[in-house]
């Protein structure tokens, strides 16, 4: 693992979330059935660094973000802010926590209340965290400053607008501005651009990157688009069915994926270089199967039912993290050289 210049701001260890299944027909007979949405996830976010979390839909990425933001209570594991274990539910301590850790939602169309103006959203965020200043002037300055940061200028033009009067990119900027109002150290961005138009995605991503640099934020960038992780993140973690399967420096992970799942993911991504129908049919032959049920996840490696390299051992034993190279690890028995990488921090 690359030596870190900074210490982690936010860390998670053994993060686990099981959603109890309720009222689901015959499952009643089996008490305690649960969706194993997140199992034993360990990650750490560092100042001035972007960590990408990629994985297919339903793999538990958003749940990780919510657990980190303490919007949901975790089933197990620890979340440490500046090395201190924090568990908050609400009230003042929650406020204090979210002053440091802010979440940006996937859908800018849904994450702003349609009945409130931009001014309301931002003012509230400032007020709640005590950054609104004491006079109307100070508030106005703070607002202008915030909008300036997300490059919505001139500020007056946007303050009075309702969300529906803004374009998707502008809305996402407002959402980011709201998160910044708390002056956080960690930004959890849950697929911040997947709902945005291609032509404006880049702007928002670039904005996030700039902010990271200016404010030296720790950013968790959640996406299902592994290509954007390559461009945007310093480090990339790959998630499959609630578990992290691979992690490491973005370029390494994307260019030489180690875990069979990461490989599948990368092979599946559209590749304009393979122009023309001639080379098209390559991966298609076998039905690649579907993600497993999270209520009864497969034993051993969760990917084994779909894995072309699955071994006997994969069906029974959970692979620990194995170091693949200095910049990369994978939770796969293929890399078992007898020396599992120290589990825990990536």
């Amino acid at each position: 693992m690359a030596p870190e210049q900074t210490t982690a701001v936010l860390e998670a260890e053994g993060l686990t979330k099981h959603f109890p299944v309720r009222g689901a027909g015959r499952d009643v007979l089996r008490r305690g059935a649960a969706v194993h949405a997140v199992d034993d996830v360990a990650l750490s976010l560092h100042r001035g660094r972007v960590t990408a979390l990629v994985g297919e839909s339903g793999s538990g990425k958003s749940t990780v973000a919510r657990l980190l933001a303490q919007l949901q209570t975790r089933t197990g594991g620890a979340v440490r802010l500046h090395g201190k274990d924090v568990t908050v539910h609400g009230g003042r301590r929650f406020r204090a926590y979210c002053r440091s850790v802010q979440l940006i939602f996937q859908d800018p169309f849904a994450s702003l209340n349609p009945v409130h103006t931009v001014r309301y959203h931002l003012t509230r965020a400032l007020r709640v965290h005590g950054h609104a200043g004491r006079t109307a002037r100070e508030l106005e300055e703070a607002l202008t400053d915030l909008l300036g940061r997300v490059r919505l200028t001139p500020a007056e033009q946007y303050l009075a607008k309702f969300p529906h009067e803004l374009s998707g990119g502008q809305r996402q900027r407002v959402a980011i501005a709201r998160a910044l109002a708390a002056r956080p150290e960690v930004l959890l961005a849950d697929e911040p651009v997947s709902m945005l138009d291609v032509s404006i995605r880049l702007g928002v991503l670039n904005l996030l990157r700039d902010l990271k640099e200016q404010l030296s934020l720790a950013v968790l960038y959640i996406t299902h688009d592994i290509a954007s992780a390559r461009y945007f993140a310093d480090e990339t973690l790959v998630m499959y069915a609630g578990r992290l399967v691979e992690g490491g420096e973005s370029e390494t992970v994307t260019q030489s994926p180690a875990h069979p799942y990461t490989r599948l993911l990368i092979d599946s991504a559209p590749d304009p270089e393979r122009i023309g129908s001639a080379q098209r049919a390559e991966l298609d032959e076998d039905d690649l199967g579907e993600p497993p049920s999270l209520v009864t996840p497969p034993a051993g490696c969760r990917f084994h039912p779909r894995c072309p390299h699955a071994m006997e051992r994969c069906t029974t034993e959970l692979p620990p993290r194995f170091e693949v190279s200095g910049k990369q690890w994978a939770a796969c028995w293929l890399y078992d050289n007898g020396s599992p990488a120290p589990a825990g921090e990536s």
Partner: protein
Amino acid sequence: MLELKDLSVDYGVGESAVHAVRNVDLTLHRGEVLGLAGESGSGKSTLAYGMTRLLAPPGVVAGGSVLYNAAGEEPVDVLRLTDAELRRFRWAQTAIVFQGAMNSLNPVHRIRTQLTDVIRAHEPDTRPAERLDRARELMSLVGIPEDRLESYPHQLSGGMRQRVMIGMALALRPQIVVMDEPTTALDVVMQRQILSRLVKLRERFDFAVLFITHDLSLLAEFSDRIAIMYGGRIVESSPSADLYRDPLHPYSRGLLGSFPALRGARRELTGIPGSPPDLRAMPAGCTFHPRCPLAFDPCARRRPPLAATSPARDVACWLHATPDTED
């Protein structure tokens, strides 16, 4: 095969009408995969629904023609068909696969019913058992176990549903399959599976595909030809490879520059400045000029026509206008 001429589609009529598609000329050749790309709101779906006359109110087809040439038959103008003729024409000649398969399948009917009723509607003489056999065949065609025929849509995964829709599209062996963002809701693995399946089926049945997406990298890989739409118009239409290597229109270039590439060297991503145009207040001249880094004198004043620069390539941009296309 299918020839759109001067097709215009509006939402609403009169003063308040939104001209979502304007004077589009587009040809879909037999057996070809034509990709239609462009950012959100550029009118891709409107075009697809408009030409099949499936646009919900307040959409209206304001003018133009949609000529369908079946082999060895008189061309028919889809826009001039009566309701009954249109019904007969639909699905038998052009089938459609929409973006959200969950919403394309009726949640209260079994897959079997939904597969067989299209056969029954067009071939009323077939026996139920025969129709069921055909439905089974379609399911195996798209690689879904036959026993899933008895399922309801919500019992299938998203990928399965989309495959059911593709199977259904092929029920009557149509000449043309229109696909409006058929895989955007799916993750990449599933997306690739479905597209590969589609490619194979196309080779087997030889239908033409109009493939709509905003993901240019996907089109570059899968389609023969790509048309780029902006603000309700086609701004460029080229073979995939040409377009990918050498986009002519600045907008096409911008689109390509918005996608981070997974492989190869890290390219600098440029993106497109500005925001998509408001259809109600289109800029005069070239609709792209306010966002165009290369805009120059005529762009703000006059609209560039879609003109051929080479035999296979059309572009609507003053940068590439030959003197005789300038009016």
